[in-house]
């Protein structure tokens, strides 16, 4: 009964606001301020209704990303809850936004202030959500409440999640550093006698790819690219400051931390020319700028990986043997660390519990495996305790990389047993971008970011798949970017960098 009453109150508040809004539009803005105070009282009552009964095991709402939820999802979650309720007195209600819907859905939830406790986020949204005030500041809390979690994740990785010097999320400590590999189908290595040890840069690929093209015929494209991906890792040498706009960046090893126009750098220009040459010569597939789904089996490709990763690729693509070699990294940048984060709502009533839960995810293998693989006995079976498992279905919708560390996660049967140790080793070896820890604050740059991104969108697919001629297009793109506010962005970036690292 009280609940409906509150709804009506809230509705009244909205109606009051509507009149305010109309009045505000019609007259001056100053009028709207005094009249808005009674309606805010209504709001608070509406919010109070969310509070649950006390003394019970709290259920936290965790918004994450994933695929279609299968029928046994609730059962699997119930099993987890049974385990965690006993262990730390917390239950979880996992809400899954589909991969394709995540953008819209999460924005709506954050903007409307819908209650949630934990939320998966990544570099495309994180700094903006923090600037909006959506997430709780965890800097002190994580050290006092969950010291194990704080100690478990290296300081570098924590630094990568900081915005304005404060921690607003728990990073998933996984392949948090970036290691780029180039991969050949071994068949062609044998056939064309390719010496992978001599391949260090893009230009070194020219001969092997040309040999393959010449040997396999006209409709064979040795370098098969897609729209979204382009040549994977093309801009790895530049730190994008989480802006997501490759034309602006800081060279990862530039000690002076100078924000530059990336497209105009000679190394990038050379690589772009090389791609264009390949496109013209039919080494890259002609439909690359509009192709969205990659071929299952590719003769050559670039990807982020770790030693041993080829095993699972061989299975999924049906290729007998892949030969891969490290080409770049490992390196930490703010963006690589922010690829997967879990933040806690600023309005959550259970911030401590949420942190405790995330700590358990990162330290307890049993919970970790249930989250990553589903219902024990239905979706997976333990082969070697919690260390090796075998998946028995492929319908579990949650993605392991969104939840927590890989280093207490079981290895799937068939994959190298030391898989995660290899990843960890890469992390330990990783250098840091000179800009690590810095994320550009774009809250005052909304107009410029929107317009430069729209300009970049207009050219990037064809530029990065080699379809357009960089010598002609790059000057044009840069000129248009400048008209859209590139210079202002660069100046602002430089100022922010200088203040941050002072």
């Amino acid at each position, binding site marked *: 009964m009280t609940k409906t009453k509150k709804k009506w109150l809230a509705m009244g508040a909205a109606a009051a*606001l509507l009149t305010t809004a109309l009045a505000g539009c019609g007259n001056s803005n100053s009028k709207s301020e005094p009249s808005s105070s009674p309606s805010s009282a209504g*709001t608070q009552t*509406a919010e109070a209704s969310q509070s649950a009964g006390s003394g019970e095991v709290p259920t936290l709402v965790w918004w994450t990303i994933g695929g279609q939820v299968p029928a046994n999802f609730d059962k699997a979650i119930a099993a987890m809850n049974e385990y965690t309720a006993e262990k730390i007195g917390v239950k979880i209600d996992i809400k899954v936004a589909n991969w394709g819907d995540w953008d819209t859905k999460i924005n709506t939830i954050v903007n409307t202030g819908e209650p949630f406790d934990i939320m998966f986020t990544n570099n495309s*949204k994180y700094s903006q959500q923090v600037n909006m005030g959506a997430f709780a500041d965890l800097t002190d809390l994580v050290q006092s409440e969950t010291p194990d979690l704080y100690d478990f994740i290296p300081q570098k990785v924590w630094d990568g999640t900081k915005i304005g010097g404060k921690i607003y999320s728990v990073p998933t400590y996984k392949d948090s550093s970036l290691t780029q590999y180039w991969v050949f189908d071994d068949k062609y290595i044998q056939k064309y006698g390719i010496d992978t040890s001599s391949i260090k840069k893009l230009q070194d690929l020219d001969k092997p790819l040309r040999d393959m093209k010449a040997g396999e015929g006209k409709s064979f494209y040795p370098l098969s690219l897609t729209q979204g991906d382009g040549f994977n890792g093309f801009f790895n040498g530049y730190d994008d400051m989480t802006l997501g706009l490759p034309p602006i960046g800081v060279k990862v090893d530039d000690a002076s931390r100078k924000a530059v126009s990336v497209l105009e750098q000679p190394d990038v220009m050379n690589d772009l020319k090389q791609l264009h040459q390949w496109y013209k010569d039919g080494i890259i597939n*002609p439909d690359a700028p509009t192709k969205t789904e990659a071929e299952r089996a590719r003769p050559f490709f670039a990807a982020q990986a770790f030693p041993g990763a080829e095993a699972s690729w061989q299975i999924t693509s049906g290729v007998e043997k892949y030969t891969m070699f490290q080409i770049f990294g490992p390196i930490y940048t703010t963006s690589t660390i922010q690829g997967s984060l879990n933040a806690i709502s600023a309005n959550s009533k259970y911030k401590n519990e949420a942190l405790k839960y995330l700590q358990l995810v990162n330290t307890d293998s049993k919970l970790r495996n249930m989250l990553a693989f589903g219902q024990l006995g239905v979706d997976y079976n333990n082969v070697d305790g919690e260390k090796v498992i075998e998946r028995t279905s492929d319908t579990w919708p949650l993605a392991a990389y969104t939840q927590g560390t890989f280093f207490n996660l079981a290895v799937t049967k068939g994959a190298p047993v030391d898989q995660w140790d290899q990843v960890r080793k890469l992390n330990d070896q990783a250098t840091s971008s000179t800009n690590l820890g810095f994320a550009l604050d774009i809250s005052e740059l909304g107009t410029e970011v929107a317009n430069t991104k729209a300009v970049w*969108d207009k050219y990037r697919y*064809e530029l990065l798949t080699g379809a*357009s001629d960089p010598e002609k297009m790059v000057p044009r793109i840069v000129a248009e970017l400048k*008209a859209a506010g590139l210079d202002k962005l660069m100046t602002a970036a430089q100022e922010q960098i200088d203040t941050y690292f002072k």
Partner: protein
Amino acid sequence: MQNDGSAYKKMRQMQGVANMDTKSGRKRLRTRWRTQDTELTLLALPTTVWYILFCFLPMFGLVIAFKDFKIHGGFLSNVIHSEWTGFKNFEFLFKSNDAWVVIRNTLGYNMIFIVLGIAIPVILALMIGQLHSGKAGKIYQTMMFLPYFLSWVVVSAIVWSFLSFDKGIVNQFLTGLGADPVNWYMEPKYWPYFLIFMNVWKGLGYGMVVYLATITGIDSTYYEAAVIDGASKWQQARFITLPLMKLVIVMMFILAVGRIFYTDFGLFFQVPRDSNSLFTVATTIDVLVYKQLKTATVGMASASAFVQSVMGCLTILLANWVVRRVDPDSAMM
């Protein structure tokens, strides 16, 4: 001309009656409230409540366009406590380099769509009723409805299966003939035709329904009278059917004009696969705004919706005003 006189006259008479009616109606407006009015108000009440709940309550969201939206707890307090920023959220709309291309595309395509979206379904609706075999007509119509149920994502996949460079049906056909395959998604010259075709194709069955229902509703005595006067089929269509459809056609026109700043996002974004080469022929306001706003704030999104609303409102009022000048009975308001 002489032949169809009587049917035509009868129609004119009917229209005259209608005219007189509205005139006397206007006079009666000044009289007092009657029980009919109460009853009609009650009848309209459920729908009015619906409008208030689902359309008017959310309208306070319009103020977000003028605010720097921040989280302060619940949504209402977010809206209230966020600072006013004037027109700052609108800036990005007017600073785009491509504003001209995009407005040209939006208005250009929409004008073509409005003309074709009325002319073709009206003509087909007139034709389909004339087929000797009603059964065949039904089958044709059902088939013409199929595309409407394919969402744009699926249509995009279909178009890809036709136009894909190495696997597409069209290029297989071309190479079969010994011609060179065409990289369709990178040839802007074909796309205006493709896009217009896709739009007409998808809305064909749907567009016909309104006109078919109108034709079905026409009193058959008009035609009986016309046939007795010796009117040909063509004359019947021209002097009976079309004039009686006028009201509906004009209304569809006004409604379409009100949407002239909006385009079907799926058609212009998903079907051309966001191809860079096709930017100048396939980018409309909605597509550009989508791209600009991928990382933008809710304030900017509201601002662009606000501008589109205001422009739509102006054009629809303008169209209504023009129609009222020409023919007061057809005006919407």
